[in-house]
């Protein structure tokens, strides 16, 4: 079986061939891996890759796999190449900045319609007692600023757009 994943805007192609009940041959980037698989539960997998043991957790939703391994977390996208490309071209003019963490807006430093430089601080977000400057990813004009000072935001919430 062939599968194709996206991780951090890079595409990875895997070929999987089951050899015995619990053993699978995986090839990726021209390299071969012998993988033996034990499902400990629906999400918890004990992998033996070429003799090395890995305890991983893989949770699935419709568009991605979230893999926890060695204390790290990877979000691996199932999306097709076309969808990714579509998003990329859409990004070039108008950029939305979303928050990667929940927190409270301490201060909004610019107004809607202001011109900003790349890297200029637009607002200050406080989470878990640390203040973080949220900067503009590009030079341009601020379109919309969603939250007001004092407001709390959830992960993924739109903070501002810059054209």
């Amino acid at each position, binding site marked *: *079986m062939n*599968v194709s*994943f996206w*991780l951090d805007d890079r595409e*990875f192609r*895997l070929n*999987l061939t*089951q050899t015995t009940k619990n053993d*699978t041959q*995986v090839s*990726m980037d021209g390299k071969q*891996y012998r*993988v033996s*698989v034990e*499902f400990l*539960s*629906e*999400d*918890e*997998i004990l*992998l033996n*890759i070429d003799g090395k043991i*890995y*305890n*991983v*957790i*893989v*949770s*699935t939703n419709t568009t991605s*796999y979230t*893999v*926890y*391994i*060695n*204390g*790290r*977390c*990877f979000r*691996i996208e*199932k999306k097709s190449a076309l969808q990714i490309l579509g998003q990329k071209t859409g990004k070039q003019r108008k950029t939305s900045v979303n928050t*990667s*963490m*929940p*927190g409270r807006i*301490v*201060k909004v430093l610019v107004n809607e319609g202001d011109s900003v430089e790349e890297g200029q601080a637009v607002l*200050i977000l*406080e*989470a*878990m*007692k*640390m*203040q*973080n*400057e949220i900067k503009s990813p590009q030079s341009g004009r601020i379109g919309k600023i969603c939250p007001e000072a004092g407001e709390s935001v959830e*992960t993924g919430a739109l903070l501002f757009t810059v054209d």
Partner: protein
Amino acid sequence: MEKTFEKILVANRGEIAVRIIRTCREMGIVPVAIYSDADKKALHVRVADEAYPIGEAKPSASYLNVEKIIAVAKDCGAQAIHPGYGFLAENPRLVKRCEEEGIVFIGPPSRAMGIMGSKTASRTQMVEAGVPIIPGTLAPIEDEKILEREAEKIGFPVILKASAGGGGKGLRLVENRKALASAFRLARSEAESSFDDPSVYIEKYIQEPHHIEIQILADNSGNTVYLGERECSIQRRYQKVLEETPSPFLDENTRHEMGRAAVKVAAAVNYRNAGTVEFIVDNNKNFYFLEMNTRLQVEHPVTEMVTGIDLVKCQIEIASGLPLAFSQEDIKPNGHSLQCRIYAEDPDNDFMPSPGKIVHLRVPSGGLGVRDDNGIYEGYVVPMEYDPLLSKLVTWGQTRIEAIQRMLRALSEYQIYGIRTTVPFFKRILRHPRFFAGDYNTHFIPNMEKEKDGGETRDELVALIAAGIKSYYESKGGIGSRQKSRTSQWKTQGRWQSMNKRR
């Protein structure tokens, strides 16, 4: 065991509240927890004997609300309050209110706390006592003009610090004149929101510094002892992340000189109870008084591991009026200990906070010399309102290398999934040749972060293979995709047993 208190209110939350509750139990004292709306299901509530709600999630309405805490203590009949660290631990107002209400505050008297709580007042006092300090202003900076003049006088780089600060909050390094004004504003704003006081002062930044602190204990009978040092130079954004004792940098002579200086610091303010004197040590082993933390420290367990002394127990005994059960000569540190502060932060994304639900938790096996002081459990939702410290993982070894290897083993077993944590970051530090050699100062982490992290590449490869395997089994409709019954095994077991009873 000598009698101390019947009941103690623990005015804190999370892992430190759990840790204090444990010692209360070991001493036969009833531990009382308090909790905010965000902490109804927190571990410190679950492990307490009694627990009382104190209000909304935001700290100012709950864990920082002196009157609510005093009222709970009086209502439930607690004779003493242990403040832990953070929140009200260094707030003289709580101490004063306790004194007024006849409740014992487990910590120093308000006067000593007041002096040490102001970095400027404490430094003035230390100059008088003959303890060396770092060049800088002793008074808070009024405005940007004065700031610029002082900075030029001291010479860049300089550091801006919150007068009421601690724990790295409201701290800014300024490399040059250009960055001064914006750093001043951010430092003031952070100081205001963290400590309710925007005062900031300036001081010279020492190159290649070590951050080393001395633990002291002082009882009410005039005995003050030092319990060795803690090397706290592994810092990120001026926050300690990993501590060890003994310091691989110090020699025996400097160690005892610093110990005696710490006792002098404590004596200068009539200090009582547990406290920590922090020093900056330059590359020639000259040490300067930085501040005194008038409370238990986050990193106190490493001292406990090498001395065998429970510092919280000592705090409680001292507060109840008992003399120290040991003298300076009795304190003989044995072996080596390390502590990793495991935070809910994403080390692969600039340490952004990562609150949320812990969907899977496996903690390391204790074994010999492993201690996991955590405040979490599987299914627990880490709230966004508070400090992101999840656990203090501590190891002990006969040698430094043994303690490091043991820590790597324990970290390899620690699985906290659902949120992102700093576990992989610690593996990287511990495996670093310079850390392993004990050759580091406070620049270690910024320098390490410029290097490439090999671990991530291997983990990424395995993650991709795991996703591939999962999708393969899903496409087959096999075990990995099976919709399991969501009924818990315990429920099934319970139903089966009750059916048997009926027969």
